[in-house]
């Protein structure tokens, strides 16, 4: 096993990796930019290397600096975490070239699976369904109609040069296709100077369900079950769970999707941790979307339900050890849910809310897991993504896990910056969510229908009483040893003013 590993990342995932390294008796080397000198991952690491100024492009994305740091500190391997360079084939190759072990798949697998089209072809070759779509531009409306009839309506017309919904049209039947094709083509022409249009089957209200894979360098690969990640905002996952409520009702899906994912990974000669993402339609057909060739943000829910430590497995595999686990040994117990706590303001367009964390109360007790990259008194920098912590719960059933998450959210308080804790608290009460009827549009639908918080006169009376006790105190704040509190008061005021 390695004696020392460098973590080419920051925030909660760097901290999470350090914890497993500690438990395995492996030295942890953190890297940090100017903005991160006092970040938790630097405080917790055994060694730390400065890799540049705050912008990621000049620090966490600088392959040379990271490899130099690993060399200087005598690290034998590099864990990329997620994001940043974790799916960058060049980085994996550069590690190999430098005689460092990249803790992840080979540069070649990353290339194969990293790009949508080759991955899609690999899946088709492995006999795994993908979202039906034309592989080339439609010559004319007629060819588009032919394809639409084959795969069945509704379909989506998309601009080949496309992006941002420009040149995109939904078509529900033959009769509308002609006009829609003309509109889409001309819009595409105007937007991209390219009128080329292709057709893709439209999957309505799909679920996003992904399969966790783990394979060793000897070619033994297994699936560790699914995660349902249908709750998304701006195509960003915000809440994940294992098992998927749908799979719980139809247990054969775990095996079917798992086997499909394993087939794709085998075809790519894949090793280490990876995730195959699928869309699932109302008829429970699943379509391969893409493969994430790294550890996922949401891996804790799989760890809670399987009892495995995915980072430990990654390290053992990277060190060349065979994966001792057989598929039939994997057990799934109970249910886990994860909420991504972001520094953002749900009451004001989810605008980011960087700033100083004045006070931090974390939930404790049975079935709680917190992966956090922050601490009280620390100032959340505006240079990186707003993920503060991941709050995960485990319980014997989904129903109990939901109740536990509500309890946990009620125990969780972050003062000084805005967070989405209250938003999750509301979402957990939503009937459709409770029933497990999830789809990728649910969060937006919920945002549209979410109820105005009712105002209990009893709570109002308490609020008035507390407000009156708190407000007079404020003027004196600066003098009575709560200087920080006072200072931040001004910052908060500043923000309030702008946001009203």
């Amino acid at each position, binding site marked *: 096993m390695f004696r020392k590993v460098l973590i080419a990342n920051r925030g909660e995932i760097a901290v999470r990796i350090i914890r497993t390294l500690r438990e395995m008796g492996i030295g942890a080397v953190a890297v940090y930019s100017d903005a991160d000198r006092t970040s938790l991952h630097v405080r917790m690491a055994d060694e730390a290397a400065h890799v540049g100024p705050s912008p990621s492009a000049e620090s966490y994305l600088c392959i040379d600096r990271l490899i130099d740091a690993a060399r200087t500190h005598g690290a034998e391997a590099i864990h990329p975490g997620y994001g940043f360079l974790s799916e960058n084939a060049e980085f994996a190759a550069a590690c190999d070239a430098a005689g460092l072990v990249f803790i992840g798949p080979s540069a070649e697998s990353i290339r194969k699976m990293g790009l949508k089209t080759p991955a899609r072809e690999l899946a088709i070759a492995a006999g795994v369904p993908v979202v039906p779509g034309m592989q080339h531009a439609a010559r004319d409306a007629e060819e588009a109609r032919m394809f639409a009839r084959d795969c069945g309506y509704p379909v989506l017309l998309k601009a080949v040069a496309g992006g941002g919904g420009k040149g995109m049209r939904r078509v529900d039947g033959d009769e509308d296709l002609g006009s829609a094709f003309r509109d889409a083509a001309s819009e595409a022409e105007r937007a991209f100077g390219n009128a080329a249009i292709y057709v893709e089957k439209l999957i309505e209200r799909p679920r996003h369900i992904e399969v966790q894979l783990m394979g060793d360098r000897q070619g033994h690969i297994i699936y560790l079950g699914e995660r349902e990640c249908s709750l998304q905002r701006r195509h960003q996952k915000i809440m994940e769970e294992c098992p998927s409520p749908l799979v719980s009702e139809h247990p054969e899906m775990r095996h079917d999707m798992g086997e499909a994912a394993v087939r794709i990974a085998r075809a790519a000669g894949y090793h280490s941790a990876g995730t195959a993402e699928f869309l699932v339609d109302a008829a429970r057909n699943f379509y391969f979307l893409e493969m994430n060739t790294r550890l996922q943000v949401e891996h804790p829910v799989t760890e809670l339900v399987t009892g495995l430590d995915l980072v430990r497995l990654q390290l053992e595999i990277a060190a060349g050890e065979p994966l001792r686990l057989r598929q039939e040994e994997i057990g799934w117990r109970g249910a886990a849910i994860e909420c991504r706590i972001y*520094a*953002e303001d749900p009451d*004001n*367009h989810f*605008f*980011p*809310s*960087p700033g100083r964390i004045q*006070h931090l109360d974390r939930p404790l007790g049975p079935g709680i897991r917190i992966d956090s990259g922050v601490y009280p008194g620390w100032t959340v920098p*505006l*240079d*990186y*993504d*707003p993920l503060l912590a991941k709050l995960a719960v485990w319980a014997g059933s989904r129903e109990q896990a939901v109740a536990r998450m509500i309890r946990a*959210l*009620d125990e969780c*308080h972050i*003062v*000084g910056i805005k967070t989405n804790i*209250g938003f999750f*608290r509301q979402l957990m009460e939503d009937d459709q969510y409770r029933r497990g009827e999830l789809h990728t549009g649910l969060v937006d639908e919920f945002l549209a229908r979410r109820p105005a*918080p009712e*105002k*209990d*006169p*009893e*709570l*109002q*009376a*308490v*609020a*008035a*009483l*507390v*407000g*009156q*006790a*708190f*407000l*007079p105190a*404020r003027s004196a*704040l600066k003098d009575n040893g*709560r200087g920080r*509190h*006072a200072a*931040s*008061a001004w910052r*908060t*005021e*500043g*923000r*309030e*003013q*702008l*946001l*009203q």
Partner: protein
Amino acid sequence: MTFDVEIDGAATRLEVDRDGEQCRFRFGPQPERRAQLTEVEPGVYSVLLDGRSYEARAEPGEDCAWITIRGHRFRVAITDPRRWLPKGGGGHGAERENVVAAMPGKIVRVLVKPGDSVAAGQGILVVEAMKMQNEMKTRRGGHVVAVAVREGETVAAGAVLATIE
């Protein structure tokens, strides 16, 4: 002692008579009641009222306090003129509007130029912070008097980005 309090915009009367942690109070039309209130941590209050236990967290806001109890957030202002100035207003219905940065960040796109006429709610600039791009909109329609920033520039929270008239 009597205060005019404003809770989430609604004005009420609060009579409080404190004796250490004990207090007698009358909230709006409610009859007089007794409560016990203790600050257990800075800004965190434990309140016992009719045998019920409430934990309230207070954060300072503009001319107000934000009080959170059992997941509910209340804006509490003491409108007693001796202590608080009337609320700023922030330019609602004013002749001019300054479009300001809702958070510190970088200007990635300016969507208008001086002289352009804009509709209420139209996007004026795009600010990037924490890897997310956010459109700053104007509340009122009119035309752009000035654009105060250039693309690529970094701005502080509250910086004036453009002026609409």
